């Protein structure tokens, strides 16, 4: 069998190897890079879609959170308002109550005073009458004759009032 030179360039081998190289380039491209790159592209698209979904979900969550916070704030404000209104009402009511109570107390006091005054007057009048009677009796006994109460009422009253003033 013939052999070629150990070191040398054989034109046909040279050409064939250029052809082989480009054939290999095509085959590698067709059978390794194309399917792998397509698959990687698909995977990237999937990952992108997932990221998009995640971002959307996050946005939604943020929106929900904002809404929730706003609601909470509103509720808080409302609660504060309610409390404040209640406080105000309570204050007004208590003031009113106090006022009423003091008024009532004053009224009671006034009534008691008037009652006392009346009682006192009544008592004075009773005493006056009694003393008057007694005086008339004493005087009757003294002068030994009947003094007409009606006739001398004015005199007796004058006397008693003088006594009252003196007492």
């Amino acid at each position, binding site marked *: 069998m013939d*052999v*070629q030179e150990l070191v040398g360039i*054989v034109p046909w*081998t*040279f*050409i064939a*190897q250029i052809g082989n*190289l480009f054939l290999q380039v095509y085959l590698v491209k067709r059978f*390794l890079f194309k399917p792998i790159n397509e698959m990687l592209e698909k995977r990237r698209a999937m990952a992108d879609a997932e990221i998009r979904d995640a971002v959307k979900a996050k946005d939604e969550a943020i929106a929900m959170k904002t809404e929730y916070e706003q609601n909470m704030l509103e509720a808080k404000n409302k609660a504060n308002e309610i409390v404040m209104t209640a406080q105000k009402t309570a204050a007004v009511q208590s003031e009113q109550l106090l006022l009423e109570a003091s008024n009532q107390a004053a009224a009671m006091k006034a009534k008691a005073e008037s009652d006392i005054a009346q009682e006192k007057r009544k008592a004075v009048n009773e005493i006056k009458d009694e003393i008057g009677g007694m005086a008339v009796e004493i005087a009757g006994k003294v002068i030994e004759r009947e003094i007409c109460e009606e006739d001398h009422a004015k005199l007796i009253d004058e006397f008693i009032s003088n006594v009252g003033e003196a007492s």
Partner: protein
Amino acid sequence: MDLDISGAKVFFTIPFDFPILGKLQVSETIVVSWIVILLITGICIWLTHDLRVENISKRQAVAELLVEKANSFVIGNMGEKFRYFIPFVAALFATSVVSNLISLIGLRSPTADLSTEAAWAVVVFIMITYQKIKAGGVGGYMKGFTQPIPLLTPFNILSELATPISMACRHFGNILSGVVINALLYGALAVASSALLGLIPGAVGDLLSQIPILDVGIPAVLSVYFDWFSGFMQAFIFCMLTTMYIANAAEG
């Protein structure tokens, strides 16, 4: 004993003399190259069948790793705009590695034939020149030879031509040296084992001395360097130089 280290065997010759090109000879180099192509393509098809987007198999992980490595190698050395070079560089590397390693199964490496490396180097050289002309125009390319002073023009032409020659010869030399050293080692060990076993007296010694017992195992140690290390290294260097030269050429 004689030791014969020769070039590629010629399997088939078309007995017609083409002008300049000579007779068309189907040599061992060409046949083994076809085997290499079939092997690489078969591996590619095997790696990429049944691809899935998620829950991938180990096989697919290897395929993806290879593609990613090729991408990062080419884009790292040449930049994003040379993305279309990825299959070329990958094919060059794969062909080189498999050609270098196919000697392990007893076939003659296509890379142990200067024609192979010369073909690759010339392709790369044409790409370099194309990128240079594309970057600076024909005028700019021609003018580049007279830089920095016109006196240096012959040296510039020489250095330009030295690029493919050095690329081809570096790769070829490394692989051929492996072939030669392996052949010498096998021959030497055969002689040594024959001498050693010939010490046994009588017919037994004569019979055993025919068996080159020392050829088992020992050459594998050298094969680690000359086939595995050198095979990967030269393929890597060739691809590295290819990417570097082309990227530099495009910068103008």
